Structures are given as structure tokens and as C-alpha cells.
């Protein structure tokens, strides 16, 4: 019933909307007249009241203007998006500017810090950055020559630091600086040797090495050759105590070691190519080291004068040695100025520097001179091989 009344009411309302009179509509449903009439009159009243709601004329005008503008310029409707895009691009532009500026500031800061750290001394706060700076520079030193040059420069810097600590009388820092100098000296030596490794002198001809040849002990005294025969003969023995002095003396006298032109041993039990050392005292020449010819430090330069790389290597070597001498002198001065208790510390540092660097220099020079000798005199002097039995420079010049 209710649903039917809903439909009837809706039908009557529609008919009134389209112009039919209330009385005409109600006549169609006389049985619902009492129910429909007040409701339909209510809808009339609602419609009448709603018709009073009219937009203000100025609002109607401006709303129309705005709507037509929106139709004529549809791109305006994308304005918020475009505004966001513009804002984003503006931000990006500013963002890039900020990033670039920050990068420049960072580069300047890092560059100035690295430059400042390169001058820093071990007691400076920036000294911790110094190895980093050097590592960066080291990465750019690719070729062996440049690497040797760079490592030598750094070794000189380490030497200057050690010298500065010595001048400042700072024994503790000087000891640390000495250790750093020693490490860098090692690197420099290795780098220099690497440059020489490219030389063709590495191809050594095979030579008979008498070093390991034992000399049998013979009861028969060796016949002493005439003094007119100045050629000393170098023989290797398994022990070198008794005749060492005589052997080295003869070597020193002769100046250069050459193979014996004439075997001087009457009862030569050694292999034919093994030279024998004879002494005027008739002592058994048991202590004969594999004495190299007295090669001075200048010899490699003179013998490899034709090689540019060798001359450069020698130049670097000279720089290292000169700097080492300067450092040693500074350390000695610091030791003199130091108090009695600190003298031992300074002496330790001096010993450390002198011993290690001197040893390396000797071995380096021995190696270099050895190669040089091989290159130049390999026809007359056999390579004695082992570095262990080489005499120290002090022994050689004794």
C-alpha cells in the first residue's frame, strides 16, 4: 500500500511539474486525495521557496567570466601542475648550484688541507694527512724512473723531518722519524734498483764460482811466489780466519783482483781454475773471502757512464747518501747538545740510522758494483755470487 502510494505520489508530482493542475491530478486518484493533497501542496511550497534562491547578479557575472576564461585557456587548468614543475625545476637549479658550490668548497678545502699537510712536521696536527697526500702522489708515479725519483724525494722529506726533530732536540719524535726515514729509504732503494733492473746488465754470463770449492788442507807449505808477482789470487775456503789478514792485505795492495796468470801453487790440489793465495809467511791461506775487487762508490757511475738511466740512478743514490750524511751530522749535533741521560737515546737513533742506511747503501752499491763488474770485467773476474761473504767497506779499506 505504502509502495503504491510512493509511486502514485511520484506520478502526481511529475505531472504537476510538467504543467498539470493539482486538481486534475487528484481527480485521477480520488481514493488517495486526502493523503496526496497535503504532500503535493508541500512540494509546491518547497519548489516555491527554492525558486527564491537565485545567484547574485555579480556572482553570476564573475562566475561566467571565470568559466569562459577557463574554457578559452585550457592550459590554465594545468597551471598548478606547471607551477609545481617550475618549482621543482627551480629547486633543481638551485640544488645543482648548491651541489656545485659545495663541491668547489670541498675541493678547495681538501686541496688547501693537503697542501698544508705536505709541509707539516711530525709534531703538527696535519702530519697525519701527509702520508695520504703522498699516497695520492705516489699513485701518479707510474714509470720506474718517476717512481724512483718520487721515492727519493719522499726519502729526503723524511730525512728533513728527522733533521728537524734533531734540531728541535725531540729525542722521542726523532726516533719515530728515524724509523720512517728508514722505511722510506728502503722504498727509495728498491725503486732505484727497479730502474736498473731494466738495464741489459742483468743478463749475467755463467761463470764458475769458486766460492764453494773447499780447499783441502795440505801439510805441504805453499811455495811462496816471488814478490815480483804482484797479482793476488783470491781463493775461497770454507773457513776464513787464519789467512784472512794476509789475503785482504794482498788484495788491498794489488788494487784489483785478477785471476792468476800463472798458478803459483806447486802442489795445487784445488781445481785448476781455482786461484790460490800465497803468503810470504808460508801460512796456509785458509781464510780467503770472495773478495771483490776494490770497487769504490764512484765506480758504477764511471763504468755505466753510457747509460742515462744508470746515471740517473747514481744521481738519486748520491742524493740519498748526501742526505743521510746531513741527517747523521744533525743527530750527532743533537747528541752533543743533549743531556747526559738523553745521550744514549740519541746514540741509539744515530746507530739505527747509520747502521741501517749504511748497510743498505753498501749492499746496494755492492750489488751495483757487482753488476758493473760483471758487465765490464766479466772476462777476468768471476762473479763471486754471495753477498754474505762480501767484506764491508771498512774491511775493504782497512
Amino acid at each position, binding site marked *: 500500500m*505504502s*509502495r503504491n*502510494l*510512493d*509511486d502514485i*505520489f*511520484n506520478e502526481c*508530482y*511529475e505531472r504537476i*511539474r510538467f504543467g498539470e493542475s493539482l486538481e486534475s491530478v487528484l481527480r485521477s486518484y480520488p481514493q488517495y486525495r*486526502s*493523503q496526496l493533497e*497535503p*504532500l503535493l501542496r*508541500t*512540494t509546491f*511550497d*518547497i*519548489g*516555491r*521557496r*527554492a525558486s*527564491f*534562491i*537565485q*545567484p*547574485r547578479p555579480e*556572482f*553570476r557575472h564573475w*562566475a*561566467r567570466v*571565470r*568559466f*569562459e576564461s*577557463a*574554457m*578559452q585557456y*585550457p592550459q590554465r*587548468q594545468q597551471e598548478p601542475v606547471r607551477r609545481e614543475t617550475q618549482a621543482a625545476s627551480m629547486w633543481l637549479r638551485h640544488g645543482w648550484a648548491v651541489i656545485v658550490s659545495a663541491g668547489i668548497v670541498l675541493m678547495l678545502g681538501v686541496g688547501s688541507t693537503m697542501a698544508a699537510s705536505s709541509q707539516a712536521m711530525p709534531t703538527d696536527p696535519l702530519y697525519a694527512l701527509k702520508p695520504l697526500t703522498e699516497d695520492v702522489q705516489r699513485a701518479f708515479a707510474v714509470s720506474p724512473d718517476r717512481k724512483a725519483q718520487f721515492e727519493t724525494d719522499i726519502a729526503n722529506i723524511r730525512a728533513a723531518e728527522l733533521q728537524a726533530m734533531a734540531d728541535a732536540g725531540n729525542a722521542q719524535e726523532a726516533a719515530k722519524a728515524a724509523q720512517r726515514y728508514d722505511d722510506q729509504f728502503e722504498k727509495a732503494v728498491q725503486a732505484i734498483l727497479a730502474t736498473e733492473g731494466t738495464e741489459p746488465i742483468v743478463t749475467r754470463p755463467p761463470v764458475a764460482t769458486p766460492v764453494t770449492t773447499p780447499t783441502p788442507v795440505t801439510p805441504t807449505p805453499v811455495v811462496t811466489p816471488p814478490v815480483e808477482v804482484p797479482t793476488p789470487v783470491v781463493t775461497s775456503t770454507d773457513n776464513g780466519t787464519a789467512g784472512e789478514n794476509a789475503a785482504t792485505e794482498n788484495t788491498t795492495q794489488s788494487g784489483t783482483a785478477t785471476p792468476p796468470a800463472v798458478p803459483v801453487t806447486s802442489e795445487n790440489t784445488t781445481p785448476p781454475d781455482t786461484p790460490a793465495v800465497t803468503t810470504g809467511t808460508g801460512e796456509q791461506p785458509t781464510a780467503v773471502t770472495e773478495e771483490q775487487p776494490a770497487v769504490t762508490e764512484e765506480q758504477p757511475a764511471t763504468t755505466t757512464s753510457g747509460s742515462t738511466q744508470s746515471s740517473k740512478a747514481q744521481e738519486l743514490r748520491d742524493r740519498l747518501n748526501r742526505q743521510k750524511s746531513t741527517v747523521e751530522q744533525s743527530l750527532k749535533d743533537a747528541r752533543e747538545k743533549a743531556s747526559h741521560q738523553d745521550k744514549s737515546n740519541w746514540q741509539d737513533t744515530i746507530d739505527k740510522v747509520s747502521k741501517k742506511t749504511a748497510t743498505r747503501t753498501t749492499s746496494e752499491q755492492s750489488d751495483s758494483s757487482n753488476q758493473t763488474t760483471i758487465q765490464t770485467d766479466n772476462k777476468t773476474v768471476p762473479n763471486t755470487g754471495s753477498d754474505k761473504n762480501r767484506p764491508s767497506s771498512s774491511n775493504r779499506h782497512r
Partner: protein
Amino acid sequence: MLSEEYLVQQAINGNQAAFTQLYNQNFDRIHRYIFIKVRDRAQAEDLTQDVFIRALESINTYKWRDLPFAAWLFKIAHNRVIDHVRKQSKEKRAPLEEAYARSVEDPIQMTERDYEVYQLKLALEQLPEAQRDVATLRFIGQLSIAEVAKTLGKSEGTVKALQFNATASLRKALYGKFDV
């Protein structure tokens, strides 16, 4: 007179005159519908403009077979009003009487028509939401039963029942008696 469907198709194709004609046909009743639903005139005007701008922006997505154009416009208006009311409800909301009284300096000076509109708003305010939506679209927006049903997503039978009950409630609210 051109049919509404033809005008809509022309408007979709970019015919500004067709869209202007649709605008003219629906402007007043959209404004009236919004005016009844919201608190004051300024809000109604802003929302009315917004409805047509949105319709212009999204006309390319409109399909006649889904919804008549008037119903589509009223659906936009309905959603905009709902958003507006929700936004207003989050704020401190004064009763309708106070809002209406504040919008006019002296209610006595209101014209008789304004007062009758005010009474209508009060009566609609007292209805349940479903009845209010149907009554507003049907009696204020002058939509057909089918259009109201599509706008609100209800069946035509439900809309008719809501319409009947809403009318009875409005009569009681407006005249103080219910004689159905």
C-alpha cells in the same frame, strides 16, 4: 532546441558554445542545490564555480551512457558539498540558526523570501541524510527519479520511498503537522 546529449557530445569535442549552453542550463539549479546544502552564500558561490570548473576539466572522461549530464553535474556538486561539510565539521561548527543569524545583521530585516528559504533549510537539516539527499536533488535540483537514483546509487523504488517520507517529514517540519 538541441538535445542535452548532443550538447554534451559537442562539449566533449571541444565546442565551447555547447559547453556554455550546458552551463547556462544547469548553473542556477546547481547553485540552488549547493546553497541549500551549505551554511552561507559565499561558500555556495565558491562551490558552484568549483563544480563547473571541475566539470570542464573532466568533461573528456564523461560518458553519457553511465549517467545523464545533469546527474553527473549534481554528482560533482554532491561530492563537493560532502567534502566541504566534512571539512567544516572538523572545525567548530555552529548550529544552522547561528550561522544564518550571523550572516545577516538583523533577521527582522530579512525579506520574507529569505526567511522562507531559511525555514526550508532548517526543515531539510532535520531530515535523515538519505531523505535529505533525495529531497534536495528531487525538489531543489529538479532531477528526475532516474537521475536521482543514478546520482545517489540507489534504486528508483528506494528513491521514491525516500521521496515520499521526506515530503511528509518536510511538511511536518514546515507546518508543524503531519496529516498523511
